[in-house]
């Protein structure tokens, strides 16, 4: 049986990669994919702890996280489509209308 902290370390690595992507990329959709990656890393932590402590609640939280990630993907992609229609780019640095 594989120890739980190995999964936690894998999850930490994936989360770090996601953070790195959000900080360094400018393409909106890539940033969005990195956010999905971070969400998945957290999901892995939930499942690992659920097995560790024999609790079903961790798995149920993963369900809710998946549902919310789906909602987030739909709305976020709609925002990017709308942005593309207006600006013909999805570079997040160009979306500066609200900046003071």
């Amino acid at each position: 049986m594989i120890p739980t902290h190995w999964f936690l370390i894998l999850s930490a690595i994936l989360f770090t990669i996601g953070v790195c992507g959000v900080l360094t990329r400018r393409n909106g959709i890539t940033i969005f994919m990195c956010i999905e990656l971070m969400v998945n890393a957290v999901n892995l932590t939930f499942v690992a702890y659920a097995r560790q402590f024999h609790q079903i609640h961790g798995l149920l939280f993963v369900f809710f996280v998946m549902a919310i990630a789906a909602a987030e993907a739909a709305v976020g992609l709609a925002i990017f489509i709308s942005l593309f229609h207006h600006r013909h780019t999805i570079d997040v640095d160009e979306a500066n209308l609200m900046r003071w």
Partner: protein
Amino acid sequence: MISFIIFFFFAAVAVIFAAMVVLHRNPVVGALSLVASFFALAVMYVLLEAPFLAALQVIVYAGAIMVLFLFVIMLLNLQHQAEPHTRPVQQFLGYTTSSAFGLALIYYLAKYGVTKLPDGPFVSDARTIGIGMFQAYIFPFEMVSILLLAAIVGALLLSGRTGVAKNEETS
């Protein structure tokens, strides 16, 4: 023994493809790499004795969300649009900050994380999950369904053609 090999192989797959998402400049390649990474995570769920969640991971993430991403990338025809390079300062700060964050995360996990093995097998079939969801978590479940409805309406409103036309007229 075989499960350790599977773990290391798919952990490597997950990490390498996740790195591809960040490093590759073409968003289509990024999306497909992310699919591979999610698939490796589904294998992790099987190793964690949650096959139901693994199937759900593949259906929802790899099957639905990532197809949506791919569809939008192809719809906007982004693969020909060269992404401008990030400023070197931002790149340097991003890499150092995130690696420092990751090292701290791994350090604290190694220091305070649980190291003993769980005792006994863990039952997580569809029946247990369903009972848990519809008894203890019925209220969050309903909240999530309302949230999804709101997301549908919001997405339609944002990407609808009439809204765009109206905004262009006013601006």
